[in-house]
């Protein structure tokens, strides 16, 4: 349980948000060209990192907007919040 600083509404309880999982997984531009392995990679395979993870959240019980979060999954500390379409901060790896 933690607070998330929504870039549109400010700091709110995590229970107002829904997690969208790993961020920056790009939808394939030409799905018909993909092999089964590439589809599996896109649909199912996840880094599931213990440590610093880039992820998407939706303020589902608030403004209902999507945004990105950098969070350390080993202690739930949020390190950075940035909007959809923005480049991820480079100081985290």
């Amino acid at each position, binding site marked *: *349980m933690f607070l998330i600083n929504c870039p549109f509404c400010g700091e709110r309880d995590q229970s107002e948000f829904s997690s969208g999982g790993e961020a920056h997984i790009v939808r394939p531009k030409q799905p018909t060209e993909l092999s*089964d392995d590439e*589809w599996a990679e896109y649909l*199912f395979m*996840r880094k*599931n990192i*213990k440590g610093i993870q880039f*992820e998407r959240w939706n303020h589902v019980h608030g403004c209902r907007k999507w945004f990105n979060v950098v969070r350390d999954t080993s202690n739930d500390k949020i390190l950075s919040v940035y909007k959809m379409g923005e480049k991820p901060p480079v100081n985290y790896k």
Partner: protein
Amino acid sequence: MKNKYSVFSLIKNALSQHENWQQAWGNPEPKKEYDAIIVGGGGHGLATAYYLAKKHNLKNIAVLEKGWIGGGNTGRNTTIIRSNYLWDASAGLYDHALKLWENLSQELNYNVMFSQRGVMNLAHNLQDVRDLKRRTHANRLNGIDAVWLNTEEVKKFCPIINTSPDIRYPVLGGTLQRRAGTARHDAVAWGYARGASEMGVDIIQNCEVKGIKRNGDRVEGLETTKGFIKTNKIGVVAAGHSSVIANMAGLKLPLESKPLQALVSEPVKPIIDTVVMSNAVHAYVSQSDKGELVIGAGTDSYVSYTQRGSHNIVEETLKAILELYPIFSRMKMLRQWGGIVDICPDASPIISKTNIKGLYFNCGWGTGGFKATPGSGDLFAHTIANDEPHKLNAAFNLNRFVSGDLVDEHGAAAVAH
């Protein structure tokens, strides 16, 4: 067995003030090389080592555990055991485990306190009723005992349930598997550890895996906090940390690790003699032999390795418990904890080879792995020893995420996720 436990050994040791009990398993330093290494000393890992030694005659094996054995999800779950899954593949897998449970105390000469007190799954709306009835039919076609109970029969089986039609999620009926029940979680880990250790398996605690050494497409050994250990067969049974180990070998798995919580109340006199689960409202309850109510909650929705879980999840679970069992309204909760569960997209496990030779994974058990402990160990041991899956775990391969042949138990198996 060197020190067989029996009523006579109990009397003998009682006469000597219980000071002469032998250590149940050894505490060796790792050797330089093993024929196979199991990563993860929980119930599944220890069971795997036990069956490798017992059925496949592989004696030079080690189990590496970064903490203490049975200290992860084996010691953190709500100990529910059942096999009433919808799909044929799952029914085969979980009922194989249930059959092994039925004889496990005798097999291990260790009382795992397996109690077939029945598991009842409640239906709260018309769709639940349809789904659960369909599941009882599917179970019976697979030879798994299952009955449908209407509201009056539910009330008769578990009189403390509030079956009033006026509650928010009224009880419209439920399914009952009488062979299902609970077991003592620590005893399972300890019993398998004792049995494996007896056959020469090295159980190495406080030994964390730091890296996997590869030579091309095959494994050569493990870097650990106790040095490099050579082996050409590695079985990973690391539950919530499976992805962490997979990343060491350059593999990605279709898993997300999330906290799942449970809590226990103060101990009270016997009040509920079965296990009642309700996946619509995310509340499971049973009573331990000490008298504590054992309550299971849902998972958090986000990836986390914190072994804590959110308060709002506990609050929602307890709200549901109180509506279903108003008699518990003054109970005090004593302890709350979380475990990290590795969830697959289809809510079924992976017991599989990988495309790296000698590297095997047993993971993805998600919120319900405890019930499968003996079956999982047996089938994973078979997979490692023969480099081929047993027919019961053939469907649970890693390749199903490429082929699309998923075993989709999400929502189908009375599983709450």
